């Protein structure tokens, strides 16, 4: 759901950039004040993984494809939505500047959608679902599905305001496609968290709810 430059007029794009900058500043402060230095390798590896997986489009029928966004994965693994904002912002900068994947003026909107909204929805949905089910995989999959769908619906509204999409058809189409793409998001998020939990359970944030010596619940 990388919005290209042509889809949003510059004035509106600037507003999303301002919102994005506020959250980027908060995320940088989170790294400085709260992120445990032990988590640095995980943050960097997840950035590499998110970049790779975002290049891997998988067909979801109806002549459409999708790929992992990764906001939920990063936020859950590191235990903060701000981790997702850091990773998605920098990944989107590399993608936009070098590879033309997502626009430059619209990068703010993309950071808001996939980093900020994806990160917050993914993190808090995981906390809620894990509190109810105590199951890592089901909670991660459900949270990641939502963290794909909600930003897509927000993007549909942004593009309605921009004059690019009509409101209802835009929401229906973005919703249908991303409900399917969200299955990719949910599956990969659960699998990757399971892999990390098997390899180094202690490297995941305590909020994931895995005993540092034990098997994932």
């Amino acid at each position: 759901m990388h919005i290209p430059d042509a889809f949003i007029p510059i004035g509106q794009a600037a507003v999303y950039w301002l919102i994005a900058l506020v959250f980027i500043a908060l995320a940088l402060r989170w790294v400085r004040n709260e992120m445990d230095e032990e988590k640095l390798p995980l943050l960097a590896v997840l950035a590499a993984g998110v970049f790779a997986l975002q290049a891997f489009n998988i067909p979801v029928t109806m002549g459409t494809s999708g790929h992992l966004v990764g906001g939920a994965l990063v936020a859950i693994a590191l235990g903060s939505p701000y981790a997702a904002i850091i990773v998605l912002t920098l990944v989107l900068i590399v993608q936009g500047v070098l590879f033309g994947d997502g626009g430059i003026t619209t990068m703010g909107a993309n950071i808001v959608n996939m980093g900020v909204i994806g990160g917050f929805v993914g993190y808090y949905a995981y906390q809620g679902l894990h509190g109810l089910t105590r199951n890592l995989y089901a909670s991660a999959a459900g949270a990641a599905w939502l963290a794909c769908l909600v930003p897509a619906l927000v993007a549909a509204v942004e593009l309605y305001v921009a004059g690019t999409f009509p409101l209802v058809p835009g929401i229906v189409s973005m919703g249908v496609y991303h409900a399917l793409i969200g299955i990719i998001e949910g599956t990969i998020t659960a699998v990757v968290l399971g892999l990390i939990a098997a390899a180094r359970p202690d490297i995941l944030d305590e909020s994931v709810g895995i005993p540092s010596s034990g098997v994932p619940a």
Partner: protein
Amino acid sequence: MISRTAFLVGGVVLALLIGTAAVFFASGDPDGLDSTALITQGLKELTQPAAPDAELDEASLPGSFEYEAPFPDYTVEGASDLTNVALIVGGILLALIVVGGLAYGIKRAGQPGTP
């Protein structure tokens, strides 16, 4: 439990393998956003694929800013598979370095005098 270094190296190698596989196996179908844009311009039905040559009418879109990325769609014109793999590998390593480097730099700057 594997060592921290093994985790880092293993994770990066896995990312590079996924990125390399993406060059050969990723779907070329439009993503959810592009499909929606095609629908709104009458070039696609919700449940049907668009015509292979369907292209968005950019002139009718509201954004006026244009930027030409050096490697649009993770490739360059006439590139070999090897070049495309190199581009994705470069992107993955760049993502690793900028995120790791920024976080490391902030941590170092935030704790003057500590090792």
